[in-house]
């Protein structure tokens, strides 16, 4: 279906190619996972397959890409759009219609199809993604997962034979990601060729026929999943997360990599076992334990919040006390009220009812600006936090606003940059950096002010594992010096590893509040919030042990042979 021969591509005004001499063949109906570090050339390759390179992006292209015998260099974009559909990371950036049916009809309208044909194509596409009842709904009323499915329907209406998706799960909550993956798998089962670019290898590996890893413009691994995970070192080196069952089987020395729980069970029968009976299990790497601090840093009492009287409450009667030095993670699907809660603790939102106290002061009497240097907020999109010309200026900005002396300013800036490993980038423009680097700059710009409270809105979203781990590890270390930290996340393992306390939110209420391990094992509560326990927990439960991350499983496993 797709033949790529000696493909080399250099972007305009760049001297080195992003992709070098790439050869690849993908058969009709194959489901390929393309992964690798940020900037390795994955998205560029997709643009090549889609024909955006060289038709629209320009630059220098060598070699040949053929889609079903059609040379992408010779065919025009309109013809190619009927062969290949491209989905981007953020559905909000690609959906421009205000009503679902307009978005889906856009492609067939551009092809000047008759009205009856457009309607048929639209109905079929919406049905395929399970949005057939949403035809007249406003696009702004859809959830993240629904929006991404709409984006898929919008290309399906042009009847492409290949679907390529560029990190379609990055902006989605667990429920949305599940919906989208199910849709993609269903399309593939119907015979569609799928190329999926994704960092979250562990979540999609079980669906795909083949895994390709790119590094510096080349394919460094190309194999079916089981064979690919035999080279687990390649995944680890690139900070890619592999499925727990595969990781466990490799760590325990199985002869063959396990792809699911059944295969783990089978492997266990061959002489490897967990301690018998239910066990509390040992602590994982960063099991924090409750910190013994009496001082309350943040408090909410009977808080209700809504934007205006005509709308429903977003926060409903919340009462909460967070102690100094505590690290609190907040989980819940989009719209559950997590971010709204965070913004209350920065005095950016004031409660409609009830009281919020920030470090002993009533938030109603506080102006957000007066909290500078005391409360730091890292927003979900770090790019919106960067406006200075260099990284160094960015990190120093807050301190300058606080009129800190030059010597102390230099010291704090250097400390923050070193901590976030961005000292080498100090003269670069923050907006020219990669997503992970931008987040580190945004974090450093907050850390440099040494606030007493840090609030982070989904800091793990769109980040690879190594980035998330190093950031959260550093945050946890800061809490030991008395810094209070609240972060929202969709990653339950991150919440278990790096927080003292986990809050689960659903429809504006806190439905669980306690030790992360305890809550992560409470499947009923998690289910109420449309969340799932970590896969390690599910594996452990089968063997009667309590494990919450892969390290737990590996540590508890004993080899009796």
């Amino acid at each position, binding site marked *: 279906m797709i033949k790529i021969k000696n493909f080399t591509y250099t972007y305009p005004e760049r001297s080195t190619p992003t992709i070098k001499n790439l050869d690849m063949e993908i058969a009709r109906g194959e489901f390929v996972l393309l992964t690798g570090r940020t900037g390795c050339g994955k998205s560029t390759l997709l643009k090549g397959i889609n024909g955006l390179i060289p038709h629209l992006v320009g630059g220098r292209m060598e070699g040949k890409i053929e889609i079903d015998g059609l040379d992408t260099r010779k065919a025009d974009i*309109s013809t190619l*759009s009927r062969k290949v559909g491209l989905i981007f990371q953020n559905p909000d950036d690609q959906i421009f219609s205000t009503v679902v049916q307009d978005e889906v009809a856009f492609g067939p309208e*551009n092809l000047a199809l008759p*009205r009856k044909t457009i309607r048929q194509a639209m109905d079929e596409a919406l049905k395929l993604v399970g949005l057939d009842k949403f035809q007249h709904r406003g696009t702004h009323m859809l959830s993240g997962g629904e929006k991404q499915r709409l*984006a898929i329907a919008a*290309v399906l209406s042009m009847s492409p034979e290949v679907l390529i998706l560029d990190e379609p799960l990055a902006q989605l909550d667990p429920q949305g990601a599940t919906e989208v993956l199910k849709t993609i798998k269903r399309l593939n089962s119907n015979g569609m060729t799928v190329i999926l670019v994704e960092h979250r290898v562990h979540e999609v590996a079980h669906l795909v026929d083949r895994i390709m890893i790119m590094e510096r413009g080349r394919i460094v691994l190309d194999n079916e999943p089981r064979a690919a995970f035999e080279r687990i070192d390649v995944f680890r080196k690139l900070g890619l997360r592999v499925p727990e069952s595969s990781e466990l089987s490799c760590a325990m020395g199985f002869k063959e990599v396990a792809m699911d729980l059944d295969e783990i069970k089978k492997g266990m029968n061959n002489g490897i076992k967990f301690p018998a009976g239910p066990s509390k299990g040992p602590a994982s790497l960063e099991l924090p334990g409750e910190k013994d601090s009496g001082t309350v840093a943040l408090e909410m009492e009977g808080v209700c919040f809504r934007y205006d009287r005509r709308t429903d409450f977003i926060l409903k009667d919340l009462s909460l006390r967070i102690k100094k030095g505590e690290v609190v993670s907040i989980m819940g699907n989009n719209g559950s009220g997590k971010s709204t809660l965070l913004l209350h603790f920065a005095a950016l939102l004031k409660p409609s009812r009830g009281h919020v106290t920030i470090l002993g002061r009533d938030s109603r009497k506080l102006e957000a600006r007066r909290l500078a240097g005391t409360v*730091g907020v890292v927003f979900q999109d770090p790019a*919106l936090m960067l*406006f200075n010309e260099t990284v160094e200026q960015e990190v120093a900005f807050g301190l300058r606003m606080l009129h800190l002396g030059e010597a102390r300013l230099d010291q704090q800036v250097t400390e923050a940059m070193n901590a976030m490993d961005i000292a080498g980038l100090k003269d670069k423009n923050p907006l020219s950096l990669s997503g992970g680097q931008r987040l580190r700059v945004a974090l450093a710009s907050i850390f440099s002010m040494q606030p007493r409270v840090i609030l982070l809105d989904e800091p793990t979203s769109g980040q690879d594992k190594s980035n998330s781990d190093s950031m959260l590890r550093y945050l946890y270390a800061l809490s030991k010096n008395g810094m209070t930290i609240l972060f929202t996340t969709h990653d339950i393992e991150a919440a278990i590893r790096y927080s003292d306390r986990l809050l689960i939110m659903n429809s504006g209420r806190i439905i669980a509040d306690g030790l992360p391990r305890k809550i992560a094992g409470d499947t009923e509560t998690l289910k109420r919030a449309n969340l799932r326990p970590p896969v390690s927990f599910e594996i452990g439960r089968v063997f009667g042990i309590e494990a919450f991350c892969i390290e737990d499983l590996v540590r508890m496993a004993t080899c009796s042979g």
Partner: protein
Amino acid sequence: MFRIRPLTVAEKKDSLVYHLDPRTKLLLLSSIGIIAVSLDEPRHLLFLSIFLIPAYLLARFELSKYKLIMLVILVGLWGMVLSQAMFYRQWPRTVILTIIPQDLPLLGRLTGGLYLYKEGLLYGLTQGLRFSVMIASGLLVAWTTEPRDLLLGLIRLRVPYGLAFMFITSVRFLPGLVSELFTVIAVQRLRGADPVKLGRHTLRSAMNILTPVLARSVKRAATLGASCESRAFNPNLPRTYLRELHYNRVDIMLSGAAVMVATALVMAKMIFWLYCKDILYFPGLRWLYAMAREL
């Protein structure tokens, strides 16, 4: 904090102003704009403004929208009337209030005196009312017409598809853009800055706000462009449309009347101008000259 969506999106209710064809609304909007520019007398402009009130009442908007339009109109009127009344430089001009007398020590010398002029006040009132009428009618159309209908309306009025698409797409992304603007301001406040404060750092602050918002917009535009192109978008090629608009009798009557009034007014003004410039004079049109002088 960032909830500005209700102010930027159209509502959908069961009322005449919502049911009108977008082409009718666009024609009414253009006609009102032409009439507002053609009229010179504040009392006529005031009458034109009052004409919009029933339409606003029929629209039954959320309260926030009424508050916004009132705010925009009052601030616009106040600013224009006051600035023109104070800084009117044409002759003749009649002082109606002395703010700083010319003979006041220091300030009087420095400023040369500061006065409110009657002619400036009337000129400011005319400009302010023109501005109010245009803003009010523009927002009325925007708040009662879904962007998809507006797009179809523009296309059916023979506006090039690429241009209409660009306009409507920018409207679609406006709420997100404003929300990002508020986020950036909040971010900077939490780092000790006061980016909306006027002063010697205003320009720098504006740049600090605009840089991340523009960078994000450019990135979004690139994604959107790629998404459109990969769905065979080409503004220069013929395309078909799933939906169709329906122009009914009320639409024909309203748009016809609006276009006729605007055309008649422009014609009357032109004929009067030709007479004033001694280019063309018809004794039989003296009644028209007299009327046009008053408008």
